[in-house]
């Protein structure tokens, strides 16, 4: 009894004290893959990134109190939908972050729209999030399939990889990546000979790889991600596909994938990304903090995790400017209105369709001999300026774009 009274008194006092400083209590959710093939590129690492962003923001805005909840969508759209509904309805979550797996992201996109909350997606790739399925409640932060196709696809065709066969993850993301890359290949004079779709999270690629081999295409485009990409690259080596003269194009390769493939297998891969931990001093410093927060020395953060950090930071800035998080549409509108500026992606902006704009880079994976320290994976081949890196605003078919 006594204890309860004291507690009540303290909280009353706190409430009084903070009322003047306009206390803001927010709750954000990190919905990600905690246990499966994308857990390394998002997962707990994304939660850690969100916590870093909150810490950085609250330092300057002591009147903010931001709680984080996190959940595992298991790469199943129905679980993602269910969890998002519950977070918004019961747990009073204001915004959801990360959501790798485009299928789940598109589902959560609908939930956020219907409940007028916010989705700041970092992990999903499908360019439909800012195209046909775009929403006034969604910001797509880190990268997308159009950008990947435009970077890696174009570079490979220009280097003589003119005939393609796709090995595609059979869901929203794979389809989008295959579609966007095919368009780029054909636009640059290449030809797509065929494709085969494999289920998400496949362990045995042998029969798909044999079909790719039989196609005699010069390039086998891997329109998959995470564990699927790792497995297909490894098993292609087992069946002597690269020795047979065909080359593999990892259309979406994360630094976590390179880490688990190892440089001897991954060397020479060309890939497009928007963030690499060893590129600037600011990135390296952040990576160190992230490792401490994540409690995993030696692990290196991916662009998805960096995107979660930057996204959370910008979201909080918009809420601070609005002084309210209640109206999701208004918050996203504010996010689009304010220029973005963070230590990882630098200065940038968010377009009317929800697309965050920043530079993209074409990297090549180093040879083992060139790598000087742990995690020293990439060298930069080219920088694609923000204006060219993403799909032109009027080509996406987003209903938010006027004209």
């Amino acid at each position, binding site marked *: 009894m006594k204890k309860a009274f004291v507690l009540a008194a303290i909280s009353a006092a706190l409430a009084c004290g903070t009322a003047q400083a306009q206390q803001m209590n927010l709750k954000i959710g990190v919905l990600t893959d905690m246990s499966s093939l994308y857990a390394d590129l998002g997962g707990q690492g994304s939660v850690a990134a969100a916590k870093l962003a909150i810490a950085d923001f609250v330092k300057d805005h002591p009147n903010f109190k931001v709680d984080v909840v996190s959940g595992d969508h298991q*790469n*199943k759209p129905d679980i993602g939908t269910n969890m998002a*509904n519950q977070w918004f309805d019961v747990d009073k979550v204001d915004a959801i972050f990360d959501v790798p797996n485009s299928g789940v992201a*598109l589902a959560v996109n*609908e939930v956020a729209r219907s409940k007028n909350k916010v989705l700041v997606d970092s992990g999903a790739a499908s360019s439909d999030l800012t195209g046909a399925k775009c929403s006034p409640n969604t910001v797509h932060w880190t990268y997308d399939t159009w950008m990947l196709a435009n970077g890696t696809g174009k570079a490979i065709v220009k280097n003589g990889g003119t005939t393609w066969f796709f090995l595609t993850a*059979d869901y929203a993301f794979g389809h989008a990546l295959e579609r966007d890359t095919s368009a780029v290949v054909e636009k640059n004079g290449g030809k797509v000979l065929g494709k085969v779709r494999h*289920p998400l999270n496949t362990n045995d690629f042998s029969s798909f790889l044999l079909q790719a081999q039989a196609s005699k295409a010069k390039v086998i485009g891997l329109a998959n991600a995470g564990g699927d990409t790792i497995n297909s690259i490894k098993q292609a080596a087992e069946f002597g596909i690269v020795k047979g003269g065909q080359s593999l194009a990892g259309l979406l390769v994360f630094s976590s994938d390179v880490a688990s493939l190892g440089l001897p297998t991954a060397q020479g891969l060309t890939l497009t990304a928007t963030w690499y931990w060893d590129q600037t001093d600011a990135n390296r410093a952040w990576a160190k903090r992230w490792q401490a927060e994540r409690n995993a020395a030696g692990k290196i953060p991916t662009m998805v995790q960096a995107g979660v950090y930057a996204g959370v930071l910008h979201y909080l800035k918009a809420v601070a400017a609005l002084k309210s998080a209640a109206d999701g549409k208004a918050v996203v509108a504010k996010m689009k209105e304010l220029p973005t500026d963070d230590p990882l992606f630098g200065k940038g902006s968010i377009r009317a369709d929800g697309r965050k704009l920043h530079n993209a880079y074409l990297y090549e994976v180093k040879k083992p001999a060139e790598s000087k320290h742990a995690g020293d994976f990439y060298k930069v081949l080219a920088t694609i300026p923000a204006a060219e890196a993403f799909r032109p605003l009027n080509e996406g078919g987003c209903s938010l774009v006027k004209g």
Partner: protein
Amino acid sequence: MEQVAEAPLRAAAPARTRSETIAFLIMAAILIIAPFFTYPLFLMQVMCFALFACAFNLLIGYVGLLSFGHALYFGWASYVCAHAAKVWGLTPELAIIAGTLTAAGLGLIAGLLAIRRQGIYFAMITLALAQMMYFFALQAKFTGGEDGIQGVPRGKLFGVFDLGHTMTMYVVVLVIFLGCFLLIHRIINSPFGEVLKAIRENEARAISLGYKTDRYKLMAFVLSATLAGTAGATKAIVLQIASLTDVNWPMSGEVVLMTLVGGLGTIFGPVIGAFVILTMQYKLAPVGEWVLVIQGVIFVACVLLFRRGIVGELARIFKIKL
């Protein structure tokens, strides 16, 4: 001949109905009050799964046939319903009927194949057929593969009542659930139901009494599949998504578990079982994969120690029929 078989079963009938009526009224009352205290979306899911489990129980509890592939009817009904509502633009009641009819058709085909074998084989065949249709759902265009059918509109019931309102939706689900529950109760206590129970107890004897048991079994199978379909279709409208989870084998296992926990062959058992299992999943969601382990442990415990299930044990203790 038939009267000889049914007479002893019917004799016990009048005494047991009162406890069932009271229990039904309590259940209905709870479900009417509950949404004011609990998350309605969760309750709607419970009712969908309770109906699913009741439909499944019709088969295992009253005919003694263990179908390990009931996700097939649940999941496919939900796909067809979602497709009908989203792409064909049907009103929700028509979409649910479309899903239900699909399940009935699938139940007829699968039933014709499966009842050719008994016992364990029956279980394996139903499981394998369901898995075949799972792979079909994975590849078919209209199901959306891994993405499922998302953004299913709830629409307007009869073109009038907007189901976008949670409470309207809740009332619809409640009516569907209670209606189907009463229907199942009616089936079980009809002469048809008595024959089913006779088959469960001793099929050879039922055959020797002149019953075409295969035909009875098939009818029960189709009925069970149809009602499972109603549950799946309703769930698609409630959650506005149809996905692979509903058609995959763990879903078949889950409905077995719900029924087993509640009590095989008890009319209220599946409802309690569905409530217990879903609450567990809901509460334990933060611990992630342990849910699977706990479900397994419950399975093992039920089989080894509580084969009557919760309701079965209650009925035994209080010597009533539930």
